[in-house]
Structures are given as C-alpha cells and as structure tokens.
C-alpha cells in the first residue's frame, strides 16, 4: 500500500443532484497510485475526524481523481463548501479496491444511492461487458447515468417510487440477469440491506461477489481499529477493518 497526505487543487466542482457534489481533483501522484474501489480521507476544516469518500474516477493521464459525495452531516457539508481552485486536504489513496479480471466476460455492477459512484471505474474497466444497475430513492436523486452509458456498459435504472426507470429495488433486475447465467462477477456498493440481498443472490447462484462497505472511521489506514467489520476468516470470527482490509470485501467473508 502506498499513500500520501497533502493539499490538492480542486479543478472542477459540479452539483450532480440535490446535496450531491462532484469534485475533480488535481493530484497526479495519488491518481497514479489509485485503484478502483479505493477511497480518499478528506479533512473537513474545523472537525477532528476526516471523512472517507470513495473514488468515482481515476484519470492517470490527466493526473486527476473524481469524487462524488452526498452531504450527510456537518462534516460533509463543510467539504461541500469548497469550490473550484480551493485546496482539499486528502490522505489517499487508501484501502483495498476491487479485484479486476480482464478474463471476465460478463459482470454486474450494483450501486445503491451514494454507493453508485465507486461502480463507475469498474464500468470504465469492463465497458460493454458490464451491466450497471443503479437504484435511487426517486428521480431527483438519480446520478451518473450518462457517465455509465458513456463507458459502453448496459445501464439499468431503478427507483423506489417509480419516478424514473424500473419501479423497485436493484435486486429484481440483478436476479433476472443472474438467472440467465454466464455472469463472472457481481460488484456492489450501497446500503447494508441491499448488499446483504445482493450477497445472498450471488451465493445462491455461486457467483463471485465483492462489496464495498462503509463505517465510521478515524485514522483511515488501519492503525486505530475504529472501523470494525465482522468477518469470517478460516472459520473464525474476525473483526476486520473497513479502511485497511476493505473497503472492498469478498461478500462471503462478511458476517451480516
């Protein structure tokens, strides 16, 4: 693992939905080291704890990272006050990302709400071999669909209230595609109940599944043991840590 801490210039900022912002950050060294599924740990001015935000885009040529985050509380609200040209303090890139395998012929990406952004680098890697299923509360909360389409991935949109795309949860189209067979891997990020259902569906079909988890975090690098996650290793219960062992875990390891 190779990470650094520093202040980096925000190259662009856009509001992609209500209370959801996209930053493009100039950080060549971090972008060079970053992998799909990793996260950045951002200092929120005036707060003790940094805020972990997943990486939504890696452009090694331009030397930029993209993050898309939602204002969830005071810390993320403070980060959202930053504008184009401002410096953002990051400890990055952190954690273990997704396992990418070029031999995979068909993969499914499942994003729920603000769990959708870390799926985008996977769509870029797999392109037409990917089906990107995204679920949101309603039409106003929908993000990144154009970005997913631009990767060549098949995009399937669901909303809880039916105001856009399919009326229902992401697990319905997931099960339909799994049923057809030929799926090499499923990658998912989103609320815990969604991840649990995705993991169960994959287990039933014997499909390789990786999920990205979230937890309240302090150090971000595996020293303080704050962000515990119950997992199973060698038939023994083990509290792994989302920051260092994750945020991406093989679904079968996680004890729900």
């Amino acid at each position, binding site marked *: *693992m*190779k*990470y*650094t*801490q520093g202040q980096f210039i925000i190259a662009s900022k856009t509001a992609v939905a209500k209370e959801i912002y996209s930053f493009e950050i100039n950080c060549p060294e971090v972008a060079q080291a970053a992998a799909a599924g990793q996260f950045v740990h951002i*200092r929120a001015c005036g*707060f*003790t*704890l*940094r805020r972990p935000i997943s990486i939504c885009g890696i452009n090694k040529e331009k030397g930029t990272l993209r993050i898309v985050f939602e204002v969830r509380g*005071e*810390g993320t609200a403070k980060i959202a006050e930053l504008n184009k040209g401002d410096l953002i303090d990051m*400890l990055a890139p952190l954690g273990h990302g997704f396992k990418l395998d070029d031999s995979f012929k068909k993969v499914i990406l499942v994003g729920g709400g603000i769990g959708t952004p870390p799926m985008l680098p996977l769509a870029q890697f797999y392109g037409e071999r990917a089906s990107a299923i995204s679920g949101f509360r309603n039409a106003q909360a929908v993000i990144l669909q154009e970005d997913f389409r631009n990767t060549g991935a098949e995009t399937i949109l669901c909303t809880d209230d039916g105001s856009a795309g399919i009326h229902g949860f992401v697990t319905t189209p997931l099960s339909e595609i799994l049923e057809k067979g030929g799926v090499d891997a499923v990658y998912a990020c989103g609320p815990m109940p969604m991840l649990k259902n995705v993991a169960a569906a994959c287990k039933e079909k014997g499909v390789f599944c990786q999920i990205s988890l979230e*937890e*309240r*975090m*302090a*150090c*971000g*690098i*595996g*020293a*303080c*043991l*704050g*962000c*515990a*996650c*119950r997992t199973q290793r060698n038939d023994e*219960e*083990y*509290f792994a840590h989302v920051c*260092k062992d994750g945020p991406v875990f093989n679904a079968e390891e996680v004890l729900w």
Partner: protein
Amino acid sequence: MADLSVNICGVDFKNPIIPASGVFGYGREYEELFPLNKLGGIATKGTTLRRRTGNLAPRIAETPSGMLNSVGLQNPGIDHFIESELPYLLTKDLTILANIAGSTPEECAEVAAKLEDTDVHMIELNISCPNVKQGGAAFGTDCAMAAEVTRKVRKATSKPLVVKLSPNVTSITDIAKSVEDAGADAVSLINTLLGMRIDINTGRPILRNNVGGMSGPAVFPVAVRMVWQVANAVKIPVIGMGGVSSGKDAIELMMAGASAVQVGAAIFTDPFAPVKIIDEMNQFLDSKGISSVRDIIGAVKPW
C-alpha cells in the same frame, strides 16, 4: 535549535513527543508517511494476555472539537506483539512504551512478565480504559485497586513502570499518590473522558457500546488542570496527554508539569501532527531563547 531531549526514569527520549496508545497501532501504518525515528517515542496499542476482538461497530463518533471511541481493546495479544511487532519497532530508533492492559491484576502482571526479557524501554500500564465492561474500568477509579494492580505489575517487571490514569475519578491526585506508593516510576494522564452521543433521529446511541472515551481539543483544558494537580502531588515524573494538537499545546502541558507529551486524536485530523508539533515546539523555544525544553517542565507560575 533548542535541545528537545528529555529523560524519564532514566530512559532517554530524543524529544518529548509520543503518539498515544491506540491511535498509532504498532507504528507500521505511519512509517508510510514519515520515518518513525522523528518521534521521541511510541506508546503502542494496548495489549492484553490473549487476543481480543473488541467491540461491535460503530466504534467512533465525532463530537464538538473532539471524538468518542469504544474500540474495546481489540489487539492480537502479547505473544504476537513480542514476536511480530516489537522486532520491527526496535529497528526504528525511538523509545518504546509498551502499553498493557488486563481484566485482572494477575493478567496485567503476566503480560508485564512476558515483556521482561524483551528490549521494550518502558511499560505503560493502562488501568483506566473505560471501554471494557469487566474489570478494567474499576482499577483506575479506586485507590486501593489502582495500588493493587500497580504492586502486582511492579513485582513482575524491572522495567520502568508508567501507570496511565483515568480522569473519570473524584480525585486524580489521590489515585496518583496511591500508584506512586505502590511502586510506579511515572504516571501518564489523562486517558479519555467517558462520553456519549445519541442519534436523535433513531434514538440510538451512535456508539454500539453506548458510551465511549472522549478525546481531542475539547479535553485539553481538563488535561492541563489534571497534569498540574498531579505534578504537584507526586514526586515521580508525569507524562501529559489529552487534546494536544499543536506545539503550543505541548509547551503548555509541559509548563503544567509534564516531562513528555503524548499526542492522540490530533493524529486523525493530521497524520503529521506529531512531527509538526516537534517543529513548533522548537520554534517556540528558539523564539523565547530557551535552550532546553527541560527548562519549561513545571515552569508555570501559579497565581
């Protein structure tokens, strides 16, 4: 460049800044960011006789100018520390305070005994972790029990023994005097203050353990007060900690009576905090024409 070196119970520190136990693991993760030999010392993650899994998540919560934690002493056990972590740390040219804990005085003594034949420089006995439901919490809040655990560990080790005190007591000076009489070579304080936050939308405490230890800048004035009181009550050295986040804070805590300073939550805000604090202390001393940091220990002139 002022002389930043200090000596505590015969143990040399190249400077007085030590990452506090629990925030810094066994050091490996921070070596990625800066060479550990910049630090005066390291207080390693609290380690018990056997591996502990710790508490369920969430274990962390933000608070105004601070945070709560309830990790619950997750650690790989003392044998793992000695076999797999200590050899690495011993190559790093910094003073090692091995922080130990246990559910009974006997367990604490057994852990200390296992360190006897190692090259650990000091033992820091945690009698105050507020997160462990059984045993641990009680030692630090009762003079007789604090003395008992100190005596048992004292008998088990010839290494300099630092006893880490809890602020969650009626009189921290009484506890400090008790552990001094029981054979402690130094005391370190303050451990975290017991706190709680509730998510008012769900009615649930944020921490899965309901309560946890509060640290960060918000507790700093409490630390200054307690360090000052204890330094005036005992003859043994005091290692200060609690909300230190700048060189000025470290100077202030040393003026209150601390011979060295541990840095905790500030490292989460800025992982380079300990290194920056050392530089800032140097600048302050130079600006005042003070040649040695030792000259400011206990230099407060109370009204």
